[in-house]
């Protein structure tokens, strides 16, 4: 391995130290910051010290000092600074942690098979097991018995529909853009970098913010959610695709071009078979992620389960919330297993 020069090591170490000390002074200052800064400077000196060694053949070599202490010290600085900025206080959890379990307990006793026994208004509950009134009573138990579940079904289906449609449109749009952004097929560097920067910016926008914008522009409802998922899928799939397009074997593509086929023809026949399994696998992966992402989009008014989640929490109906989450869990479990099975088949 090539050894880094003295100046190179000094620069990297100085940057690390400066970063740690900057974090300290931005967040706290005072005596603690002074002590930690001194310790960080000392760890820099430790990292810069070298060791002379004499080999058996008489050659002298210098072994550069280990940087691990400096890295650890910088990490300590960053973590302490973060703790100050966020107001980290473990005692709060010790004091009020039971509140968490109160809610969690309610979430984990969901309102699914909650059977309310219906007492006959005419006081005939003695006939509960009898043949004639029995059927009616049992039906009533069923109608009430599923608790909150029936109200979850429609938004759950909406969530699934939103993610299927959004994943499909986003992934389909992503393919041509991924081809443009890959450096082995697109020869124009300007277009490639412009495209990559746009993709990068799209990926930095959180899905919820896109959903909020879409809800404002297209109105509340599932369409806004679909738009948000489409944009998100587009960014992610396009990035993963151009990275894998760059690793394919270009021999067949070049051969076809030399025969006189157009770029599209050669891409379609020579590259498509190579990238198709990867592409489909990424699409399924995106679908998996989107089901989970789509579940919270309703929080900003973009349709789906998020609406219910928001509403249940607002009413402090944590058992209803548990039902919503249970439904989501089952769907995610099924879709994940299915998609993992298909992805194993594809590879």
């Amino acid at each position, binding site marked *: 391995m090539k050894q880094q020069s003295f100046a190179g090591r000094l620069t990297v170490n100085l940057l690390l130290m400066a970063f740690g000390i900057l974090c300290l002074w931005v967040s706290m200052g005072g005596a603690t910051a002074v002590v930690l800064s001194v310790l960080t400077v000392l760890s820099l000196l430790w990292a810069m010290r070298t060791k002379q060694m004499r080999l058996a053949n008489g050659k002298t070599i210098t072994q550069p000092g280990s940087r691990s202490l400096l890295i650890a010290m910088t990490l300590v600085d960053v973590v302490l600074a973060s703790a100050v900025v*966020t107001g980290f206080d473990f005692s709060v959890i010790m004091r009020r942690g039971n509140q968490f379990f109160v809610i969690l307990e309610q979430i984990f006793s969901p309102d699914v098979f909650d059977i309310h026994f219906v007492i006959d208004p005419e006081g005939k509950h003695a006939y509960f097991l009898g043949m004639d009134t029995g059927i009616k009573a049992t039906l009533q138990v069923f109608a009430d018995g599923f608790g909150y579940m029936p109200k979850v079904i429609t938004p759950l289906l909406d969530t699934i*529909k939103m993610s299927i449609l959004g994943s499909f449109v986003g992934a389909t749009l992503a393919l041509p853009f991924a081809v443009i952004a890959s450096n082995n097929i697109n020869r124009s560097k300007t277009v490639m970098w412009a495209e990559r920067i746009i993709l990068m910016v799209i990926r930095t926008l959180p899905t919820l913010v896109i959903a909020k914008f879409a809800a404002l522009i297209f109105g509340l409802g599932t369409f806004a959610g679909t738009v948000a998922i489409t944009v998100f899928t587009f960014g992610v799939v396009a990035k993963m695709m151009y990275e894998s397009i760059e690793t394919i074997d270009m021999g067949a593509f070049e051969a076809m071009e030399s025969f006189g086929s157009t770029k599209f023809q050669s891409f379609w026949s020579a590259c498509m078979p190579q990238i198709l399994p990867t592409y489909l696998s990424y699409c399924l992966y995106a679908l998996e992620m989107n089901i989970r992402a789509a579940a919270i989009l309703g929080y900003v008014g973009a349709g789906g389960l998020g609406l219910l989640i928001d509403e249940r929490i607002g009413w402090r109906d944590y058992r209803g919330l548990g039902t919503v989450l249970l439904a989501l869990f089952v769907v995610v479990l099924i879709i994940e297993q299915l998609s993992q099975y298909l992805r194993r088949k594809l590879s």
Partner: protein
Amino acid sequence: MQKQIQDVAAVQKQQQKQLQKAQGYDVVITYLTAPKRWWLYTLILLIVVVMLSWSGTTVKFKGMTSKGSEIAAGIWNGLVHPDMNLLINTTTEGVPYQLLQTVAIAVLGTLIGGILAIPFSFLACDKVVPKGIAFIFNVFILLIRTIPSLVWALVWIRVTGPNAFCGVVTQSICSIGMICKMYITAIEDIDTRILESLDASGCNGFQKVRYGILPQIIPNFISTVIYRFDINVKDATTLGIVGAGGIGAALIQCITSSRWSMVGSYLFGMIVLMIIIELFSTQVRKKLARG
């Protein structure tokens, strides 16, 4: 006449067969006699079409809202002309402080999550513990992963109150799911032959862990944590929507009150921060992968 033609055809066929064999046309024949999968492809296409048309039933484009185009123009204007005062403001309202808080949430959340995930991932790996226990912990991890981070945040707000600390606790729990999944892969990839050879050379338990296991998993673990940090910064920007600290609260407030130039400056700050962090994380992970 008829017979002659048939004869000729038969001879030609035979010649062709010989020719094909002689010139290595086997490939073509194999290609032509390969099992036809068209029904499978048609089936897949049919399933996709049915699923899409089923999805199309609810998702309908109802045109833009009455203010839609105005809002779109506002967002665009805000992004092009961000509020410069807010961008360089050093008070708690300003973009720098908000971004700092967001990153701080992600740093602590990822670190605690990464540490909490270690015992879980060992317990959920069926190479280490019996299959039954591994299954239970796998379901538990999936459960953590399925509950959206916003819900975790809303649950923790009851404990910590609406502040950045809530964001930290939320992310510590949320991160466990994905980090565990990747830790488990790293643990499954451990080369156990090294342990056997360390055994043979008389190492004790601690030495086996120090020289046999840690060097194999530490780079993977650090790489996972840095990757998750990347995701957590992005996630922390939205946690503010429910009041768990970070830039999200200010951003959503500005969006609802249509102050587009402020929205622009918050978004601008977020985009720059996220690009820097992504580049940093890619670089570090590349170095870790090379060793």
